[in-house]
């Protein structure tokens, strides 16, 4: 049973890139284009893993993570941040919001796959 991943990123090319590279590694991918839609899609698809960008219009990544974590059914769902930012301050903020891990863009497909399997076997 392939793992279902919800990716949230406001860039369509990034969503497609994620979908292409992760589908090739056997994951099933759903996508949303900002935090608000991401939260709605969480309810709809109940993914095994959430991968979210940080800088997005409407609801940003931090807010999305907090909102997802506040829901009992997603307390144990791993959440990875995928962002071009890499400051310790931002990482700490993501962690306290409830993120499981942080991956810095640009990503290498294989490493991203390995990172995903690290939280979502």
């Amino acid at each position: 049973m392939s793992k279902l991943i919800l990716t949230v990123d406001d860039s369509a090319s990034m969503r497609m890139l994620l979908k292409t590279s992760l589908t090739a590694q056997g994951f099933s991918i759903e996508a949303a284009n900002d935090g608000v839609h991401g939260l709605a899609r969480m309810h709809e698809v109940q993914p095994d893993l959430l991968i979210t960008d940080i800088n997005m219009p409407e609801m940003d990544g931090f807010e999305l993570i907090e909102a997802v974590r506040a829901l009992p059914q997603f307390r144990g769902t791993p959440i990875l941040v995928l962002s071009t930012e890499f400051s310790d301050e931002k990482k700490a903020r993501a962690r306290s919001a409830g993120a499981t891990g942080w991956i810095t863009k640009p990503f290498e497909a294989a490493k991203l796959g390995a990172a995903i399997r690290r939280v979502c076997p």
Partner: protein
Amino acid sequence: MSDELDEIQAIFFEECTEGLLAAEQGLAAMQGGDTSPKTIASVFRAVHSIKGGAGAFGHAALTAFAHRFENVLDEIRAGRIAPTQGVISVMLGAFDKLSDHVAAAQGTMGLPDDAASLAALEAILAGKDVAPAAPVEAPVEVAPPVVVESSAADDIDPFGFEPVTVAIEDFAATDAAPMLPVDPEWTILFAPSRDAMANGAEPVLVIRELEGLGARVTDVDISGLPSLRDLDPEHAYLRWTISLPGDVGEDQIGDCFDFVAPDSIVEIMRTSSEAPPPPAVAPAPSAVVADVPLREPGAIHDLLHRVEVASPAIAAAAASATATPAAEGSAKRDPRTADTASQTIRVDLHKLDMLLNLVGELVIRGSILSDRLSPADQQRVELPEQARLTREIQDTVMSLRAQPIRQAFNRVPRMLRDLTAETGKQVVLETQGETTEVDKGVIEKIGDPLTHLIRNAVDHGIESPEDRLRAGKPAQGTIRLSAAQKGARIVVTVADDGRGIDRVRVRAKAIEKGLIGADAVLSDEEIDQLICAPGFSTATTVSNISGRGVGMDVVRSNVEALGGRVDISSAPGRGTTFTLVLPLTLAILDGMVVRLAGQRFVLPLAHVIEAIRPEPGQVRATTPGSEVIEVRGTYLPVRRLTQIFGLPDVNTLPPEESLVIIVESETAGKVGLIVDTIDDRREVVIKSLEQNLHPIRGLGGATILGDGSIALILDVDALVAPLSRTLTRGLAA
């Protein structure tokens, strides 16, 4: 696979275009004094996204530049640098370079020279440390040529990261362990912190991954387990000792601990025969031994783990299987609701065109059916319902092609900046109606005319600041760019408050160029029209900007090729306004089918005001060859299409037995057209004549009617344009 990547990259470039637009709007707002967090964030996000995508596609120079730009924006966003006008002007410069970098990444131009811009950005960043909140005006001008030569693709390391090209197909290869000479074994001590299972993390997965690298657990310290009663199943209590073959790379081991919670203990060491070396890697931010409670006995946790790990997976899989169809169902909502408006897919324009053409054919087939079936048969086969659906499809397809005209306007601000820098003139741009939606084809084709008009306005219209002050005007000129929908037409105007058209000079030039005779008597409007004549140019020196004598006639021919028109109005000393009247769509037309001398013509319904069956004497001749019709107390000119097209007059009826269709045109106001009868009102698919024939004045195209016959579509504006204008055009051509 590479096709797929190309496709994604093409989307990335579209996003760049959108991002650049958003950034430019944000910067313009900042320049205008709006430095709200929301505006700054919008610029930051745009540049940030461009950087992210550029990194993913390996555009190193673009990534590097965007990164530096983003750094400054980030400081502004955080309030550490004040967005003074000086800083914003550097931003605008950086924005232009960023646009150039995007163009370079697309291969449409070479790598830009961004050294000066980078230095200016660098100066802003450096200025922050010297005087945190003080305005940073000065460094902009005196920017030392510091640091940066980083436009070179291989020089991006100083920024602290390195773009990695995505290798989609090679993912299996990178996992292979490097072959090293026989090394001493690794020994790892792993003590997850108490809350290591929060946030969906799972320490057991770390051990599994290490096992995949050949690790084996040599010891599990269960002394931290509390009694069952005190045990919190969401807390971690165990600590593991793991040994790993010595040929596994240290990085690989470190990676496994990437997502381990802070405050966990990770010690990785080589087990040699001598004393163990100090811990090599501690990927978790801090490894504090004292945080780990290791006291109470008990041995259930590892067991609990396995149960937990297995069950959520099954539950989640089951949930996703049932949830997905529901999700699809709820997604099928009205696409126009605000909720889903931002969810878009991108479609190849050619596919849209194909769809549009097919819908056109469908409309024609519908017309043919309604012609051939009796009203009763039409009801029996529910043709009206079919027609309604067809119309809805048609509307939807048309709306797919509609785009805000902003896309054509968006290149103007930058062009103006270049122009004003080049000419030393001061110009402010005011835009209006950018959200007016126009067919994509129209937007694509008015870019060049707009460019010419703006150049023209700056070069010939707006005076130098000194001249303007002398004329009692503000030193800064204004160009107003606006768009609005009027009926089935889009009206775009470019208005400047410059010196207006110098009619004496234009006339002299036209005589000199042999465009008009020395004794020609022309009205002001006719003289203004002369500037659209091919080869006409009054610029005494050919500047870099305009004055090559190709501009205005290109504007006119481009707009006319679209089925549009250019109007010029000018007031000496007060400015010039160019009005482009464009069709809303290029494909389908709501028309009135009229019959004239045995032939059928289509009148665009947008022009039709009313149809009148004239009473005897209502149409009367004034001067020979000129007729008027009296409509509710006013007199309107009347035209006979038979005369205009040179059709045989034999079949035409006297005015009392024919119909007068009152049309309204942009050129001549209301005019009556005499036709024999009205056949029908219907939507017709415009087929261009110009692929096969020279443009014919007064004809906008042709269409196929329901019975398969061909009808010509009338171009009302050209048809009823005042004769004087027609004369001028004749002279100009």
